[in-house]
């Protein structure tokens, strides 16, 4: 059987699960300041996990694409440690703060250069701007069949079969490849990567290439930045918590039960 080529789009973002105290809003510069390390967008890790599972069943090559003004290969090398074969970083000053449509443009141009592929996977949404658009726009730009919110992905006989989230349960769908699938968290967390493996991958030689706008045919003049008119802090969500104490757990439970009865 022929080797399947899977492209996974992965975005590097400040840890979206950083504690609230490490996040602040710089209204002046319209920027969110996050005092936390950069990570791979969690849903993109789910997408990678789905790709690796496919690779376990079929002969597949996984290429990870990540785009930005500057992308850290130390963050993205985790994808190689997990089981991806190749990492392509799309880096250029022109790629800073683009709107979703323009991000998809750049990714589409890079994918056209890769040329031969069967499946493009993206996360359902990136946790920095929570836009949830790039995947489907990309699919449209590449004129691919688009499947969103996958919770299970299989391939057989040139088709991709997906269980996609549905308000009443799930829907079983199928499309000819090449196709685009956006991945939801139900496919499962990215597999555990041992420390030794991770360290080896951080130090060792790896298949990483870096493309700037001159390395592939990207229409930079048409790229647009997202225009933020205003950035505000959210309203305060804090409440005064009354801690229910007690000499024993039994006493605490009794007091808590009384709270429920009061609220009835």
């Amino acid at each position, binding site marked *: 059987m022929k080797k399947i080529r899977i492209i996974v789009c992965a975005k590097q973002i400040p840890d979206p699960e950083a504690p609230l105290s490490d996040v602040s809003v710089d209204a002046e510069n319209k920027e969110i300041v996050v005092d936390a390390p950069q990570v791979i967008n969690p849903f993109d890790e789910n997408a990678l996990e789905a790709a690796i599972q496919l690779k376990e069943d079929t002969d597949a090559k996984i290429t990870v694409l990540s785009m930005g003004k500057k992308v850290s290969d130390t963050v993205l090398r985790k994808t190689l440690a997990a089981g991806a074969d190749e990492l392509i970083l799309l880096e250029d000053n022109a790629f800073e703060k683009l709107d979703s449509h323009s991000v998809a443009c750049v990714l589409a141009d890079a994918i056209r250069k890769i040329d031969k592929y069967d499946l493009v996977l993206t996360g359902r949404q990136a*946790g920095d701007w929570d836009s949830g658009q790039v995947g489907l726009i990309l699919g449209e730009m590449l004129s691919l069949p688009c499947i969103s919110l996958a919770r299970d992905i299989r391939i057989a006989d040139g088709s991709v079969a997906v269980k996609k989230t549905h308000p009443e349960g799930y829907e079983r769908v199928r499309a000819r490849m090449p196709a685009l699938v956006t991945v939801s968290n*139900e496919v499962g967390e990215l597999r555990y990567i041992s420390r030794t493996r991770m360290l080896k991958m951080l130090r060792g030689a790896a298949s990483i290439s870096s493309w700037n706008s001159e390395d592939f045919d990207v229409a930079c003049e048409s790229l647009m930045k997202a225009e933020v008119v205003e950035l505000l802090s959210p309203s305060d969500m804090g409440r005064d918590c009354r801690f229910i104490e007690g000499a024993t757990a039994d006493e605490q439970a009794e007091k808590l039960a009384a709270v*429920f009865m009061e609220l009835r």
Partner: protein
Amino acid sequence: MNEVLILGEVRAGSLDKHTLELLNIGKNLASDLDGGLFVVLIGDGLLAAAKEALSYGPDKVFKVEHALLNNFNADFWLESLEQAVKQINPKILLMSHSFIGMELGPRLACRLDTRLTTDCIDLSINPARGPGEDGLLLRTKPVSGGNAISVFKCQGVPQMATLRANVYKPAKTADSQGEIVDMAPEIDESIVRVESLEIVKEDVIALDKADVVIAGGAGLGDEDGFEILEDLTRVLNKSFNNVMIGCSRVAVDKGWISPDHQVGLTGTIISPDIYVAVGISGAIQHLVGMVQSKKIIAINPDSGCNMFKVADYGVVEDYETIIPLLAKKLEELS
């Protein structure tokens, strides 16, 4: 071409509640623009729903009907909606940030070469009279999970946004002088690229209907933790109506529970009378889904966790100790 067009959704023959919310915000925007308010409905056999839509006072209701549009199929619906929007040519196009809107929005924006802002909580018009004023749609949206609120402005026609559910009040019925306009989409089987094989119905719960939600997270440790929570809901059911089980995303990721139970940004956003967070740390993406609850009770051995910051009552304790004891006490009291 100063019209505001909203995509209405029909559920079991009548308008979806969130469509009424769109009608409300759409009416405000249309009046700011001195333009009309239009509704487009897609499906098959829509007359009753179109009449219902008309009762909220829009100027026109476009009825896009075709036998192939009977159930939601993204390929058919997208093509039909694209054709309709090109014909109607509105200034603003709004959809719910629903299952349908999340899929059609980005794809349609791409096809129309315009820009979409998703999951907005407010929309307004930047006036077109003074300097720096351009009549564009200002799109207010929580970003970074809810750590900030951003107001975006984008070029492109139509101006497109999807609206978060339950933020705007539903429209009230109004004088209806409007008309129903029939539209026949040109579609056939050949445009389908994603074939729907089967919709597998699961026993999904309507979490937004719950009065009390007992939610479990990673802190439960395993699937069996939800059984302990189930025992508690059984007892609470004697004193409260509609007690349901919720969860954090991690519980879904681990396969302990199905996704319809998930509360939060990519789950359901709810505001029950009582929300009990058990073993949930309080990440922002979870908090946005439940901070509007009337009373919040948190159970977590980590007294420093975020959940306590938004809670009214807290118990710093292992859930396996406290929940069974609580269920027993409640049993005695009820």
